């Protein structure tokens, strides 16, 4: 079936470096994607979203890139801080009124 998945389960970066978290999707008709951040003991929190009519969207220290040709999106975090340590999920809403999540990438920021 259709899926949203992530390339790597874990990512470790040095504080101050940039982080890139990748996600692949299989449904070429997908037109809206969301990145969530889940800190330990908490529920997922919206970070940024992007629609398929865009290739790039920027927020505060975060950028999402969408490549529809290869069905791939990425989340870039600039100047990664210890507070960025969390599990990051890409997700897409479906026609069945649910949000389909990938498995997640655990980002660890080393001081």
């Amino acid at each position, binding site marked *: 079936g259709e899926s949203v998945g992530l390339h790597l389960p874990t990512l470790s970066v040095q504080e101050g470096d940039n982080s890139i978290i990748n996600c692949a999707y299989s449904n070429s008709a997908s037109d809206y994607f969301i990145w969530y951040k889940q800190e330990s003991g908490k529920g*997922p929190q919206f970070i940024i979203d992007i629609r398929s009519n865009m290739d790039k969207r920027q927020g505060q220290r975060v950028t999402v890139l969408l490549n529809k040709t290869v069905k791939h999106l990425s989340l870039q975090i600039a100047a990664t801080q210890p507070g960025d340590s969390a599990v990051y999920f890409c*997700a897409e809403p479906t026609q069945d009124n*649910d949000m389909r999540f990938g498995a997640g990438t655990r980002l660890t920021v080393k001081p």
Partner: protein
Amino acid sequence: DAGVTQSPTHLIKTRGQHVTLRCSPISGHKSVSWYQQVLGQGPQFIFQYYEKEERGRGNFPDRFSARQFPNYSSELNVNALLLGDSALYLCASSLVTGELFFGEGSRLTVL
């Protein structure tokens, strides 16, 4: 303003028992969704309710049921608990569709 609140935060049950989880959405939000998150995985959609009616259902057995009350709060019920039901159960609210706001979840352990 209060976010999405869930209760209880933690609970332990034994196989075959029944559990009720509760969720209060953000004030003004009329849609509530339930997700199951098994350790190491992304959230999996269980139900969505809007205006007290079920609007979506994930691939979960009939042991799982939910309802939404006139004040838009919601309950998730699970009967005949199995060991595999051990998970973090997340509730999310939204205005109608769009951005989901998650609670911190109810962690269920089935022994």
